């Protein structure tokens, strides 16, 4: 708290009003509605609704389609987070070995951040389009029956590749920053002790990167869960079958295409719980970083 402040009483409220109005109208009110609808069931004509307790949640959590979406989401998120972080860490370590040209490499690495997820998906679809994609062509020549529009696993591979590609630049920037913060003296000491580079990496560099890695793990999970909606929607629409239908895609599909309100609201509430836990986890951890870092 500051010692000196302005004495006005009304002005601060006027300054806060726009932001508070927007959060109340577009965030809190709808979120409260999602909670309310999640314990109600509407009759088929939408004329009346009755309180059903947790029945919607029970229904959703016992629905094989929902469990399938949960499983797809876990597979998708783990693959995206793993590949996006591993590739980014590898490249960040390589760029830190270099003296001249670092700035140029960084410029060339960061811009996929600016590509919309949906467009990232379409770029990969163009390259691997079964009828005219240039990279689908060699797959065919190798005898692979490549058609991500019909084969669920191939569709998954395509959306994972697009989502990973887009996230590498973000992770790369943070890993580079993390690596630059490592004290040089520690590595010199390790070299004097005769540790190989590989050993020094796994026993010194990697452990010291833990804060960055944890932070990125949360960010990448949130990204894979929520921000990749555009990729899935633009490339596969959850298909073929339901092989790439993630939780976020399903909540959209049930609420807007299939119009099942109660279920959609229950799904929203479940997602809300997931985001809140992830964010809380992230802030707990960041508080630690502020304390010790």
């Amino acid at each position, binding site marked *: 708290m500051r010692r000196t402040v302005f004495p006005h009483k009304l002005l601060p409220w006027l300054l806060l009003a726009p932001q508070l109005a927007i959060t109340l109208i577009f965030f809190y009110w709808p979120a409260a509605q999602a909670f309310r609808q999640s314990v109600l069931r509407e009759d088929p004509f939408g004329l009346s609704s009755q309180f059903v307790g947790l029945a919607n949640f029970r229904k959703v959590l016992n629905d094989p389609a929902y469990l399938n979406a949960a499983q797809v989401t876990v597979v998708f998120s783990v693959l995206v987070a793993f590949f996006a972080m591993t590739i980014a860490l590898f490249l960040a370590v390589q760029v830190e070995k270099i003296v001249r040209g670092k700035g140029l490499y960084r410029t060339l690495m960061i811009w996929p*951040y600016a590509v919309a997820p949906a467009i990232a998906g379409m770029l990969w679809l163009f390259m691997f389009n079964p009828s005219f994609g240039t990279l689908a062509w060699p797959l065919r020549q190798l005898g692979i029956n490549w058609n991500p529009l019909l084969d669920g696993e191939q569709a998954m591979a395509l959306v994972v590749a697009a989502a990973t590609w887009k996230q590498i630049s973000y992770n790369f920037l943070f890993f580079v920053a993390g690596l630059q913060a490592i004290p040089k003296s520690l590595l010199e000491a390790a070299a004097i002790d005769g540790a190989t580079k590989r050993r020094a990496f796994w026993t010194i560099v990697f452990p010291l990167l833990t804060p960055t890695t944890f932070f990125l793990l949360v*960010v990448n999970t949130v990204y894979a869960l929520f921000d990749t909606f555009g990729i899935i929607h633009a490339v596969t629409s959850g298909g073929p079958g339901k092989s790439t239908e993630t939780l976020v895609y399903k909540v959209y599909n049930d609420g807007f295409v299939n119009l099942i309100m109660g279920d959609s609201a229950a799904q929203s509430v479940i997602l809300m719980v997931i985001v809140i836990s992830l964010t809380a986890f992230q802030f707990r951890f960041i508080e630690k970083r502020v304390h010790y870092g």
Partner: protein
Amino acid sequence: MDNSTQGPLVARGMGRTMAHLWMILGVIIVAFPVYYVFIASTHSVQTILRPPLPLLPGSDAYENYRGAFSGEINRIGGVSLWRLLGNTTLIAVGIAVGKIVISMASAYAIVFFKFPFRMACFWLIFITLMLPVEVRIQPTYKVMVDLGLIDTYAGLILPLIASATATLLFRQFFMTIPDELLEAARVDGAGPWRFFKDILWPLSLTNVAAIFVIQFIYGWTQYLWPLLVTNSNEMNTIVIALKKMVSFADADTPWNLVMVTSVLAILPPILVVVLMQRWFVKGLVETEK
């Protein structure tokens, strides 16, 4: 950051050469999808549909881009390319400026005034971090319908300008302003507006630039929101228009024009990131704190 300060990992000889080779491979992988679509945008439909695509630009670039800008996109997108770029620019700039204005105002109120429920207001804004549109999708849509905001620019921009991260960042920055500065200003008779305009705003410029870059990208790359709140082609962003072109593709789809649209959907935000790189990196790192 770009000068050759020796980092802890700097290698010599073979190690450094190998690192260059790996980075070149990494850059190729990262750049290839965009290079591919750029190359495709310079070839005719016939060439695009006969893989493999040549690795060098073709001779149809002028033809494709001229056609796309002079009305051929209307045929497949229902609206001109100019309109799509205009819509997207308006939304991206509107979101970025809107976020900066309302979060600066909020942070200013929270840091430089004393009033009841001050911290409650801060938390109210802060908690919106945990309520992305995906988790309140249906009821938010209903609010938009009730307020008549479907197919309007206000509907595309307003609900997205609340910003916990920007408010947090400005609050943190304002708290580093020494009390003495405010005291001196008040002794000189400066009110809240004078203090903001003459002292705080000039000091905030790098933060404003950093947030602008990040939020411009955020606005330009929106997908779910425009998908929900627009029905008419007139209101499409370039990203949504592109998605419609691709999903209604058939044997007659002019893929060369789709590729041109893709390039133009990618280019503006990439230029912003590359040209404003310093602020972009600052914004990225600071908004995540």
